[in-house]
């Protein structure tokens, strides 16, 4: 049972029969009526941006808050001194300086606001995922419905999902258990997005493997891998409904690396690939080609970790992508190359 509050003991209500023309009787709508007011639904990110400031009172948080305060004070003092110096030289210069400062502050505030909103959206994805997990664990209908509505909002700007969203809205009014509703949401809304995500990851991996195989310098390789990985992460986050800003990207990258560290890289289903690579396919390839494959695999793994941390629902009804799914082309290509190249 989901409702643990102890309700006040009240006398049991006896069974009763009512005529249908009773004035106090309201019939439930016969068929679940989908509410298609998606336009009127507020943007969760804007509504919840206040949530980011719940840093709590950790020591680190206190430090950064204080540092931020000191920095803004310093900036304020510096700027006001600059403006008054300029004014002392010539009033015109002073006004120009003031105007420039105002623009600077304004744009700074807008940028900051966007960063905060980006962070909030990422945090929102995490929260939805947590909610979904506990809705499944406790078979909690109310929580599941909240998850489904969150997902409808997150995918509201994806035109190809209009039909799927309408279906899901119709099911919201039906009698479906909590865990089933979360799975249904996943099955209805996410397959198309998952396919796109998978494709993005495998394309990125292939690009990396090709480019680093032909590039002349290790430094170029490194830069290219980094660039591809970061842009892949950003696009994945965008795909799943979180549009991270710069700060959001920093957080996302940390998150992905953390995830990679926890999962230890290869999941159980990947052992085959690992064996192929581990038992010296890479070694038997010409050194440069092998490097390309390894870099491609690394990108693919980063991509999988990024999917895991940006997808707003855990993989329950649908299978999670494995390395073999996003790196097959890569491995086949490596094998072909190996077969073609003279020993």
């Amino acid at each position, binding site marked *: *049972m989901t409702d643990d509050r102890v309700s006040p003991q009240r006398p049991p*209500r*006896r*069974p009763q029969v*009512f*005529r249908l023309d009773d004035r106090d009787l309201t019939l439930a709508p016969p068929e679940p009526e989908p509410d298609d007011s998606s336009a009127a639904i507020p943007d969760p990110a804007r509504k919840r941006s206040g949530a980011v400031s719940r840093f709590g009172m950790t020591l680190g948080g206190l430090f950064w808050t204080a540092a931020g305060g000191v920095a803004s004070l310093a900036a304020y003092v510096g700027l006001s001194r600059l403006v008054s110096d300029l004014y002392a030289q010539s009033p015109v210069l002073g006004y120009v300086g003031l105007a420039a400062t105002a623009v600077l502050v304004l744009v700074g505030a807008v940028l900051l606001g966007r960063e905060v909103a980006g962070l909030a959206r990422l945090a929102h994805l995490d929260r939805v995922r947590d909610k979904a997990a506990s809705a499944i664990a406790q078979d909690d209908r109310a929580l599941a419905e909240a998850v489904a509505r969150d997902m409808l909002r997150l995918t509201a700007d994806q035109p190809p999902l209009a039909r799927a969203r309408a279906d899901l809205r119709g099911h919201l009014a039906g009698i*479906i258990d909590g865990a089933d509703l979360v799975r249904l949401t996943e099955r209805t809304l996410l397959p198309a997005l998952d396919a796109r995500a998978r494709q993005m990851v495998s394309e990125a991996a292939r690009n990396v493997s090709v480019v680093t195989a032909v590039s002349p310098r290790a430094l170029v390789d490194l830069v290219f891998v980094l660039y591809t990985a970061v842009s892949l992460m950003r696009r994945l986050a965008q795909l799943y409904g979180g549009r991270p800003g710069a700060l959001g990207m920093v957080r996302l990258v940390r998150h992905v690396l953390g995830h990679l560290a926890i999962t230890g890289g290869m999941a159980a289903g990947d052992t085959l690939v690992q064996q192929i690579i581990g038992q010296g396919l890479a070694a038997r390839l010409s050194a440069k080609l092998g490097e390309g494959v390894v870099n491609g695999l690394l990108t693919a793994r980063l991509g999988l970790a990024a999917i895991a941390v940006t997808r707003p629902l855990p993989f329950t009804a649908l299978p999670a992508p494995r390395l073999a799914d996003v790196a097959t082309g890569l491995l086949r290509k490596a094998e072909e190359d190996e077969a073609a190249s003279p020993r």
Partner: protein
Amino acid sequence: MTGLTRAIEDARIAFATLADRVDGLAHPTLRIGVTGLSRAGKTIFTTALVHALMRGGRMPVFEAMQSGRIARAVLEPQPDDAVPRFAYEAHLATLAADRAWPASTTRVSELRLAVRYATPRGTERTLTLDLVDYPGEWLLDLPLLDMSYADFARQSLALARAPARAGVAGPYLAMVAARHADALADESHARELARLFTAYLAACRTEKLAMSLLPPGRFLMPGDLEGSPALTFAPIDPPALGTMAANSLGAMMERRFEAYKNAVVRPFFRTHFARLDRQIVLVDALSALNAGPAALTDLERALDGILAAFRTGRNGFASTLFRPRIDKVLFAATKADHLHHSSHDRLEAILARLVERAHARAHGHGAALDVVALAAIRATREAQVRRNGETLDAIVGTPEQGQEAGGHVFDGAEEVAVFPGDLPETPDALFDPSGAGFRGIASAPAGEVDFRFLKFRPPAGIGAGAAIPHIRLDRALEFLLGDRLA
């Protein structure tokens, strides 16, 4: 059971299993048993299940159907020549044309369905589905296999003398008291005993008492055995001391009890039960709540017996050679449409409490187990009624002709809203050992009962082509079939 009979029995089961398995390699087949005590809803469930697979419907939770992977399902000739076919067409016609519930299950019947589907990767396959509908009472017979006549007589008489049943058992108990087991065997006397015993069992099953634990199962559901000597026995008090003479009444009863086990119980176990892959057990918890605490306790005992049946044969030769076949058991509280959906979780909790002990055991045995509150055919809509500043969650349906509430007798056409009473937040409140957990029509006057579930007519608009409204039938299908259609 002697060592030899047991070995022969095990060998026959093993052979049948092997034959099934070999056949299963060529044509993937799934045998699903649909069982439950009398009037639990087996016929309705099977009919609705077949209809859903053949005609589709609103099934969001049944993934294979929702995603359109099921191409078609068609009825096929029933494979077992000696078993009657489940009369799907006739049942559907009764529902559609007369807007009446079809006749209940009284014996085993079977239906074969071929489901053509595409796997998620796109290969087209066919799964052959055998649905076996059989009375749950017959499962309660399986524990008899391990009982002697003396054990059986002692247990049955103890049940009959319990306060909840003593009233209706009166005539039978009087006859038992009148003649001793040492008396000379006499056919007419035995028939009279069996007749009174059967009448007592039948009386226990009326709506007012709603008892469940009534073995031997064939006394109420004789099938084609009506009147045969194997059914002409009854429990009587064993002789005061020593053994019975060969020509005594007691000895005759004992012989017939053994015949019942050999001619009825064992063949059922071998030809039907041992071959099932999946099982759904339908439980009518609402009738027990309607009747009162004694009925609920009795239902719990009966379910315990049914669950014991799932273990029968697990320790024999057959099971060491072949894994136990039943790998999934679904317990379903039927007729959930008699409650507002906000109470379904509570109904599910009551069912879970009823099968609690079984739960613990089944996990140990590796069979997956789940509980669900469902209505194979949804006969009601929902409504809310404001009364004395409170909002009551009610359901709206057409009570069957002759049902009555508050002195008003329904004509079968009038539609009313019913507030059936509040199920408790935690089921333990109902299982108060003193029997004061709640009041039902068995013991309390009609105005003071805690629950009242009227019987509704099936919904209008059921036809061959139209989808049938249901509650969580899709969830049951997903549990029973989902993994085999992947």
